């Protein structure tokens, strides 16, 4: 019997989010992937999940999930766990799924591993790879039999295509307790930015405290623009109020995995590296030759970011012309 792995698929604007599809593909490689899709768009999304690896999809097309956070999904997945015993619930670390996982873990006495970058599943159970700090890597497992939860790092897996796979679809109709409707979404505000989204950009140019002052972040934006990339930031300058939190790259910000990452005036703290170490090429500009960022840079430039950034923007414009 192959292991059954559940993936709770997150929806945004009526479509599955990329991180859910990444994890679904991983689940399909580990065993029998079953998706759970909840929300008013669930019925439309369900049929396409086969091509991303799902053999079965549980569907509850109900707007309660769109209007109330966390608790409706916790109730529904818990109800499903009363009927079925998957080996594993695999979830990408996103804001909403993290909140759901924390409660599912307790409510169903599951056991939970966070921040995994890879995992294996065999007769002995789960073996999850978890990076620890900058230098250590841990292999962790769950101590009890029965389902457990593994939360994975964003972008740990690529989206896979399973040509011709058609998922069996089961409509479920769980009822909600009144407690399910306690966290009400009153409004969702999208803060628009130009250019590609930070998470999806092929090029990310990030700035840190070494830029000296908020106005100099313009040089980061200019370079990002000529490279068709997105600007990013360290927590230091987000905390300083130079930029909104949506720019933050790192452990408590976004994880990016672009082809090119340019780090300007960034020291390279472990928490920042956690969000960008997976980039294909890293170019760092820092005044201090001992800055930790240089130890992971493919090209390290010892110099003043405020001088070099505008020169580089011009140089690229010239070469592209």
């Amino acid at each position: 019997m192959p292991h059954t792995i559940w993936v709770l698929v997150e929806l945004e604007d009526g479509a599955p989010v990329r991180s859910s599809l990444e994890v679904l593909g991983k689940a399909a490689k580990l065993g029998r992937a079953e998706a759970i899709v909840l929300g008013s768009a669930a019925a439309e999304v369900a049929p396409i999940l086969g091509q991303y690896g799902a053999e079965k999809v549980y569907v509850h097309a109900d707007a309660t999930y769109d209007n109330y956070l966390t608790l409706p999904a916790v109730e529904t997945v818990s109800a499903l766990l009363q009927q079925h015993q998957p080996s594993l619930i695999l979830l990408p670390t996103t804001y909403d799924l993290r909140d759901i996982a924390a409660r599912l873990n307790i409510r169903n006495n599951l056991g939970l591993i966070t921040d995994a970058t890879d995992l294996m599943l065999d007769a002995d159970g789960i073996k999850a790879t978890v990076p620890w700090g900058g230098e250590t890597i841990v292999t962790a497992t769950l101590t009890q039999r029965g389902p457990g939860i593994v939360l994975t790092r964003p972008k740990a897996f690529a989206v896979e295509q399973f040509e011709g796979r058609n998922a069996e679809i089961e409509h479920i109709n769980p009822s909600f307790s009144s407690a399910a409707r306690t966290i009400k979404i009153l409004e969702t505000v999208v803060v628009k930015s130009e250019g590609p989204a930070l998470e999806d950009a092929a090029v990310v140019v990030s700035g840190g405290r070494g830029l000296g002052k908020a106005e100099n972040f313009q040089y980061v934006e200019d370079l990002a623009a000529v490279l068709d990339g997105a600007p990013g930031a360290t927590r230091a300058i987000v905390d300083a109020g130079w930029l909104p939190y949506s720019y933050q790259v790192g452990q408590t910000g976004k994880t990016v995995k672009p082809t090119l990452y340019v780090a300007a005036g960034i020291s390279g703290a472990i928490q920042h590296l956690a969000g960008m170490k997976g980039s294909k090429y890293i170019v760092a500009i820092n005044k201090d030759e001992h800055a930790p960022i240089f130890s992971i840079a493919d090209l390290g430039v010892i110099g003043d970011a405020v001088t070099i950034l505008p020169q580089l923007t011009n140089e690229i414009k010239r070469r592209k012309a």
Partner: protein
Amino acid sequence: MKMFVCIKQVPDPNTAISKLDPATKRLVRSGVSLVLDPGDESTISAAIKLRDKVGNSELVALSMGPASAQEATRRALAMGVDRAILITDPALAGSDAFSTAQVLAAALKKEGADLIFCSTESTDGYTGMVPGGIAEFLGIPQLTFAREITIEGQKAIIKRVIPKGYQTIESTLPAVITIASGSYEAIYPTMKGIMGAKKKTLTQMSLADLGIAATQVGEAGAHERVLSIGKAEARAAGQIIKDDGNAAQQIAEFLQRYQLL
């Protein structure tokens, strides 16, 4: 209103490289300097501001940890928290997010809480699983990633950071609220605060005080186990150049060589 802020002592992120002991597979806590989690400092600051705004409220710092964690609670008191509780018991060593949430929730239940503040995630464990776990044990909602909080009667309304912007969400009280890092300006302890902290109450609780069996928590109760510890694959450093006026050209050439332009 009775408000609590859950805080934790962690290895100083500015000096310590967090290490795991190969034998016990636990975080090495000896020989490293321990501090109040910097994330919790900003959560405490948010909680103090809210206590003062709501008025007629008490703010209590709650921590679970070894006896040394008293230092962290002292700092919270110096920052302006009214009193503190430290849950400490040898059986708690090696607790996972499940037992930590269980123990903290038991103390909160005993005390009675209207509002519970946590950081979104801790600096050493960064599971982010404890706040939601507390909420589940108490059967109350959790409002996460708050960057702005409004309390109106028995309701909490928060601006919740999301990747694309923010959401405004609302729930009844009691509730657990987690603060998004960097949302609130830190309050620093003043000399007066530090002196005053000495007169504030710091209560210790044990597992027996909470009616929790030692076998349920700590290593004995853990749902997860570390099988092995290895070295992370290091990303090799590349070429380092010094800017002699030509850095921009050299970077552009690098980008062209790897077809990044």
